[in-house]
């Protein structure tokens, strides 16, 4: 079976499993909501501070949600050693990672899109006029988050301190994504709005580099 088809089969399994239980989506939504509300208490939302600090806090919240949501990605495969079942199948090992990356991307993007209106209300920022560019930055940042998160979830799942290891590995590596996404979002929410090609290119490059790295080392990542 070719790589895209195998990845699509794994993606559909991930979606079916999650939408049946909604455990991960529900938990992450509540967590990010709490983080956004708590952050909003730290400054006056009516002031211009919102536009300056809001995007950074928003992406920090998404980063935390990523480390929470991506943890079970490979951990769930350990329950009945189903990762071995996937590895026994005659498919490219990267298709296992690709299917999970795609599923994690969709889950994270869904959480972000649901929480965007909440962010707009809490931080008093009009997002409707800039929704298009904002979704573009969200998508590029989320690809980076999902790609690296899925890779490190595979690494952490085989370690003894797996629950602690993922945030420790993930957060430093995602610092460039946090900086680039925040800067791009600040530009978009500025008056007048500016879509920074430099930061978008930076985000796209990060995504391509980590996807390529995952493709190259995918087989070894999934080994015992």
């Amino acid at each position, binding site marked *: 079976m070719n790589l895209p*088809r195998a990845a699509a089969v794994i993606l559909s399994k991930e979606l079916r499993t999650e939408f049946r239980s909604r455990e991960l989506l529900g938990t992450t939504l509540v967590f990010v909501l709490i983080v956004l509300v708590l952050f909003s208490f730290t400054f006056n939302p009516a002031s211009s501070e919102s536009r300056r600090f809001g995007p950074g806090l928003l992406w920090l919240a998404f980063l935390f949600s990523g480390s929470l949501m991506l943890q079970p990605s490979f951990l769930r495969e350990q329950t009945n050693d189903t990762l071995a079942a996937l590895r026994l199948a005659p498919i490219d090992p990267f298709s296992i990672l690709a299917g999970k990356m795609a599923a994690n991307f969709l889950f994270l993007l869904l959480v972000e899109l649901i929480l965007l209106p909440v962010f707009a209300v809490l931080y008093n920022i009009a997002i409707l006029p800039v929704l298009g560019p904002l979704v573009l930055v969200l998508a590029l940042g989320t690809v980076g988050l999902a790609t690296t998160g899925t890779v490190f979830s595979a690494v952490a799942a085989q370690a003894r301190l797996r629950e602690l290891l993922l945030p420790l590995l993930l957060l430093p590596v995602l610092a460039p994504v946090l900086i680039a996404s925040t800067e791009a979002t600040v530009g978009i929410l500025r008056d007048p709005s500016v879509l920074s090609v430099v930061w978008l290119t930076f985000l796209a490059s990060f995504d391509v580099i980590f996807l390529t790295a995952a493709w190259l080392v995918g087989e070894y990542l999934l080994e015992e």
Partner: protein
Amino acid sequence: MSRSGVAPNSCCAIWFRAETSRVSTPLAFSPNAGLRISFCNVEKRYGMRMALRGVSLEIAAGECVALVGHNGSGKTTLLKIAAQLSRPSRGELKFYSGETALAPDVVKHRIGMVAHHTLVYDELTAEENLVFFAKLFALPDPAVKARQSLVPVGLAGRAGDLVRTFSRGMRQRLAIARALIASPQLLLLDEPAAGLDPEGQQWLGVTLSNLHASGCTILMSTHGRNETQGAVTRAIRLEDGNITRDSGPGGDPYPVLAMAAVRETSEGDAR
């Protein structure tokens, strides 16, 4: 053709004959040639611990080999290496179909495995699990194949139930259906009778005998004496990562199996 209209040399077709009363639609599968495996001086090291110490072993096509030995003797490691789930630290593993050496990616299509864990998803139904794996093996009509595979394992009536509601024995039956869904030429089983009641063990014994009769190569680890050993044509004892007894191809496997059963019993009594 058999009485049920199934090709006689197909592993799964013969399997269906074990429970003909439950089979409504006979299936036709391709003939099973069986794979030949060659372990050449295979070593496996986990950190400082040696799990296998230079194992050299030839398993001919169509053999049914039982691996016996204590916990930690290297049985599961050997099976994992044969399944390509684990790489040997040293040595080589080769597969042959007839006289033709097969590439590792080609071999995966032809291997089925029943592992220590069930390798099925608790959050999916029995049918969804089999459809998922049928799709990964690129089988035609995965949904039909999945439904048909559930009949002989007696789970057709529970096809739509989540696996997490199943008993251990039912999960094991589903695990066996998953392993056999692509009509493997090499079947690897890690203590397949675990969790099965005496009736389930007997059913598994008949299934393995039929698979062996069809030409499928079988390599399984087993503890003590159980119903699955009826089909065994060769027994190998592993101790501390070494082969210490091998009844050999064509030899009588029962002395090695009996010795394992006696040791298991005496160790159980001692405990």
